[in-house]
């Protein structure tokens, strides 16, 4: 197989690009919030706007992989690939279970 770059699977490539876009957006948005939040926290202390920005940054960071999983579910559904749609839904449920565990632990403290 010695060829110029072939179009391996155009559909899979489009899926990858969409997911790449979600990941990129998440990283850029969360890094921006974290950088700004940290700068304000160092200047004025860790309260008010600084704290809101820092927590927003952390939450955006945590939500990015979740968003990627949700986009994948939609992509597998539109490809009528029910097996992988099901598996991806299981991953989403596991992430929700972690969030639920976080809430349980939070109440205990």
């Amino acid at each position, binding site marked *: 197989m010695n060829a110029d*770059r072939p179009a391996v699977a155009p559909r899979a490539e489009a899926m990858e690009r969409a997911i790449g876009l979600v*990941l990129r957006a998440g*990283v850029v948005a969360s890094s921006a919030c974290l950088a700004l939040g940290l700068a304000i926290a160092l200047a004025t202390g860790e309260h008010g706007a600084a704290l809101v920005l820092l927590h927003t940054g952390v939450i955006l*960071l945590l939500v990015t*992989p979740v968003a990627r999983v949700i986009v994948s579910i939609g992509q597998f559904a539109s490809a009528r690939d029910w097996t992988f749609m099901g598996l991806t839904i299981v991953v989403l449920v*596991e992430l929700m279970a972690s969030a639920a565990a976080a809430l349980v632990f939070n109440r205990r403290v």
Partner: protein
Amino acid sequence: MPVVNAVLALEIFLTGAASGSLGALLGLGGGVFLVPLLNLVFGFPFTVAAAISLTTVIATSSSVSAGRAGQQLINMKLGMLLEVATAAGSFLGGITAQFVAQSVLQKLFGFVAAAVAIVMLTRLQRRNVILDPTIDPGVLGGRFYEAESRCVVTYRVKRLGLAVVASFLAGNVSSLLGIGGGIIKVPILNAWCGIPLRAAAATSAFMIGVTATAGAIIYYGRGQLEPALAAAAVLGVQVGSWGGMRFGASASAKWLKVLMAAVLFVVAAMMFMRGGR
């Protein structure tokens, strides 16, 4: 929880940058360096160090995978399938970490760091297996274009059960110890499951975002994630891994691997000593 001031933030940023660039040079996440630095040098409780490290793992996974998207290197289907196992392992690890003494986590980290060092040393000469390009990749296999050889690489996944078990363990260790877990999955996927190294590494890097999130959410909910420290570490690791990838590609990594394996043995010994008290 430590109070954040400019000096501490800068120190953590630089620690993150050093861990991130080493990780990128060695093809690891930086967590295996960041966690012991935060725990042993800065003196943060192990769970606080692990929580910070997991946020940097998520950031690295997202930005690296975003950069690779469209190259067909990431095996999305295999990744999603194995994520079922890593997320379950990570969820259980995140809960377990809340009930386990710091000394146990330190000893486990020491054990994993030593194992990582051994894997690093035994794989110095490892090359990609030559694969038959005409095989049918099947449902889970993949096909990608490799620029160096100007060839289409096609592979089939073998021993899926082993890949699932390895992923579960990697997820478990990931959220217990605050590392990505790629060092556990990638050698197994490559050596026993028939996946070319680049595809195994790209798929693993893609997966660890979800893996680390399942663990990090629990630490965050528990109040063990200090956002200002995480911010400094995340920004540092991003800068470091960008630099490491940019300037490290040309350099031979062999001597670096030997050096880092030595460092990891020292880390393992220190973790054992702390954990043994």
